[in-house]
């Protein structure tokens, strides 16, 4: 992270610009919600893409992650790996069919009921 006075002075304008961009993206998020997109999947995708863009701006500019030491990148890489595993848990849960009654061959109404 560059933190000498000259580079900090040069960054002041950038901080305000990024703050403005974040507010614009917030307005876009709310506006997209008012439009009522055709499917919930599309609405989720658009909202999450905008949120990821906003989060990236906060992390890279305000938290100075665009120019950090490798130890911090290493710690964050581990965090990302564990976070992906954590987010995969719901997916594994949805894919898990163990114990779910299977439809009987022939489609009898009483299949699996006894």
């Amino acid at each position, binding site marked *: 992270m560059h933190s000498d*006075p000259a580079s*900090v002075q040069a960054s002041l304008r950038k*901080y305000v610009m990024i703050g403005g961009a*974040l507010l614009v993206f917030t307005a876009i998020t*709310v506006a997209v919600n008012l439009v009522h997109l055709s499917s919930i999947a599309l609405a989720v995708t658009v909202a999450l893409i905008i949120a990821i863009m*906003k989060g990236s701006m906060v992390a890279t500019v305000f938290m100075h992650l665009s120019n950090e030491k490798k*130890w*911090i990148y290493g710690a964050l890489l581990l965090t990302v790996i564990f976070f992906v595993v*954590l987010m995969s*848990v719901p997916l594994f849960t949805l894919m898990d069919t163990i114990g779910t009654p299977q439809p009987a061959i022939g489609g009898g109404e009483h299949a699996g009921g006894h």
Partner: protein
Amino acid sequence: MNIPYTVEERPDSGLANGKLGIWLFLASEVMLFGALFSTYIILRTGATEWPHGELNVPLGAFNTVLLISSSVTMVMAWAMLKLHNWSRHRLYLAATFVLAGLFLVNKYFEYSDHLVKGEGPWHSTFLAIYFTLTGLHGLHIVGGMVVMAYLLGPGAKLWKTNPDQFTNRIEYTGLYWHFVDLVWIFLFPVLYLL
């Protein structure tokens, strides 16, 4: 005994201890909120129906504006210390504190609006995860405000005796504060809009 590497960087990591410490803390926070987001996904995908329009979107959007503005004032508070502008630093840090307070005031109105109608966390699965996620986030706001109050009050004396260490403390507080903002950036669309 002085604690080593509060200002100077360690030769092995190239970081002051506090810097690595706050990032490891934030890593644990990612997992804490990640577990709750994961829970939200399980609850939502398993629900036969999910309510829409139960939350006050304009108030939620206004809170987003407050937190984003507070992130700008927080990074400016740190920048002003780097530029040795003490009075501007105080102004920006106080502004961050006030914006955080306004966020909590809005949250109070939102919560009380639900509770008056008997819509507490017990009312539905949606409100249970809503109160859990926003309540935990609100506690983080309170935590940030306590630290900021200390740095505005008795903690400010450190600037006279060790300005570099004080600047580092503001930087670590800022990293925490930006993380709290980042979490809200995801909470707002997930809870209020989708």
